[in-house]
């Protein structure tokens, strides 16, 4: 039986541009695992080519999903622009919206960074933070339940294992958890760490980061087919939370 041409594939999601009419998707999802999940969203963190153009990055995130998105202010210098963009009350379609807090080019003292993050409008559901950025947990309590701590990959000195994160969560009882599946998979090939993280912090789980990692470099790349199979049992434990793609949707 001949394969259907790509043009005959149905778009995976209804598409909604910020302005104007519905557009045709640029990248319909071909991964059955991703296409079956709801809600799914894109992180603007992988959109290096549009850095600083928040409206443009949101448009690209909308092309992946109108339901969820993560706005990545990974460099501290990007955060002010993001705050200003959101204070302009853009008409965003997302039901779930997270912001990735800065991890690079940090200059502000921690209390000031927290204060700036706390200025993010209430439509931001989660503020994802790397554990190595939290040196004074009491300062971060101001973010309340919006604070979400992410597990780390092996390149960091800490933050990969449940025992690394437990003291942080003990100090921040309202904080949520973001499971970065690729990070956990880089710690142990068999995904045991991911299961242990879910065992320990599953009740706090707010979202996933889903991607593969480029071998040796640790950068996020579109989900490999082999990782789909490797992650499957972990993902099956998380059917109810948004999955945020940290790389473009796979085109295979």
């Amino acid at each position, binding site marked *: 039986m001949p394969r259907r041409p790509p043009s005959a594939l149905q778009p995976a999601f209804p598409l909604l541009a910020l302005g104007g009419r519905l557009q045709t998707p640029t990248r319909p999802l071909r991964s059955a695992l991703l296409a*079956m999940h*709801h*809600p799914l969203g894109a992180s603007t963190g992988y959109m290096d080519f549009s850095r600083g153009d928040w409206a443009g990055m949101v448009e690209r995130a909308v092309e992946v999903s109108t339901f969820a998105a993560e706005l990545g202010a990974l460099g501290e210098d990007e955060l002010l622009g993001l705050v200003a963009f959101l204070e302009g009350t853009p008409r965003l379609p997302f*039901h*779930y919206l997270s912001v990735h807090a800065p991890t690079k080019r940090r200059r502000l003292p921690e209390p000031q960074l927290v204060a700036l993050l706390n200025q993010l*409008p*209430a*439509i931001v*559901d989660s503020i994802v933070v790397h554990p190595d950025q939290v040196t004074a947990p009491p300062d971060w309590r101001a973010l*309340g*339940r919006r604070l979400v701590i992410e597990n780390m990959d092996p390149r960091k000195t800490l933050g990969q294992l449940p025992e690394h994160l437990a003291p942080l969560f003990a100090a921040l009882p309202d904080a949520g958890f973001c499971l970065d599946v690729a990070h956990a998979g880089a710690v142990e090939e068999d995904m045991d760490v991911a299961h242990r993280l*879910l*065992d320990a912090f*599953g*009740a706090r*789980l707010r979202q996933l980061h889903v991607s593969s990692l480029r071998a040796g470099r640790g950068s996020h790349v579109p989900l490999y087919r082999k990782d789909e199979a490797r992650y499957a049992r972990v993902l099956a*434990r*998380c*059917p*109810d*939370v*948004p999955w945020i793609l940290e790389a473009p949707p796979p085109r295979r």
Partner: protein
Amino acid sequence: MDPGSAAPTPLSALGAAGGVGFPALQAARARTAQRCDVARAALARMPRDLDVAVVLLGSWGRGELTSGSDDDVLIVTTGARRPGLQPAMSELEPAFPGGATGAQGTFDDVVTVEELATIGLQEDSNRVLTRRMLVLLESAPLLGADVHRQVLARLLDAYLGGERRDRRPPRFLLNDVIRYWRTIAVDFEAKARAGDDGKWALRHAKLRTSRTMLFAGGLLPLLECHHVTADDAPAVLLGELLQPPTDRIAASFLRYEAVDAGVRTLGAYDRFLALLDDPERRAALERLVRARAREDPTFQECRRLGREIQQGLTALLFEREPLRRLVRQYGVF
């Protein structure tokens, strides 16, 4: 079962399976049980006709009493409406010193089971539909447990009497439960558009949490009829409906091996209940007008909790077999 019973329940089993408890839900159940005991003691010497039940609705019926809960009570008889029926609502004063209340006069009257069993067409008003659904989906007996059970059985018979197909969710009842859920949602918006903005934020928060849970708690037992014959369906449904909605939902998460999602879903509901039990935050919600909701932290917290509850229930219904197929087959058309 008493809505506040301390016996092991699907809710406590889910909490244990997830390694967490649901402290606000468990505290609310304990409070409900204690208040039921007090209310029964206050009414111990009051005469009651043998065909009458004093039925608790709302948060009483769900076993979810918080500090700000209304006293929602309905007097139901399996007999005829008549003068001198005992007890009258006014005689419940010793049990509910503030007076039993309810929005739009929904809960402040006597009703016969035959009036409740008037399903569809012109006689089935919004008020009748609301009372029938609340009795079916979130009621518990304060007095007359046997009559309450007969009322549920009679209502189920009214729905299921013509259904003789095995292993199929009963369409008549399923459609009415869905109709009720959509009616709540439409009426919520209609009230807001009519300028009835009082308590808008609290109503919105409840729509996304306790009303959503109520609907799911009615939908899931109906889908369970997929597993049984038409002869067994009434008893199965009666057994389910005698449990609080959170137990029905927790049991489904356990049954379909969705413990992780279930812990998060009931956990979000637990947080909402704790929020409602905080007089300051509840009062802030009651005062909040729609125009200020976008930037209000308490409202936004309720919105997030409501989203988490909906996501969890959606995952249960759409990502677990056979529920996924059942919703596809029966949930839309």
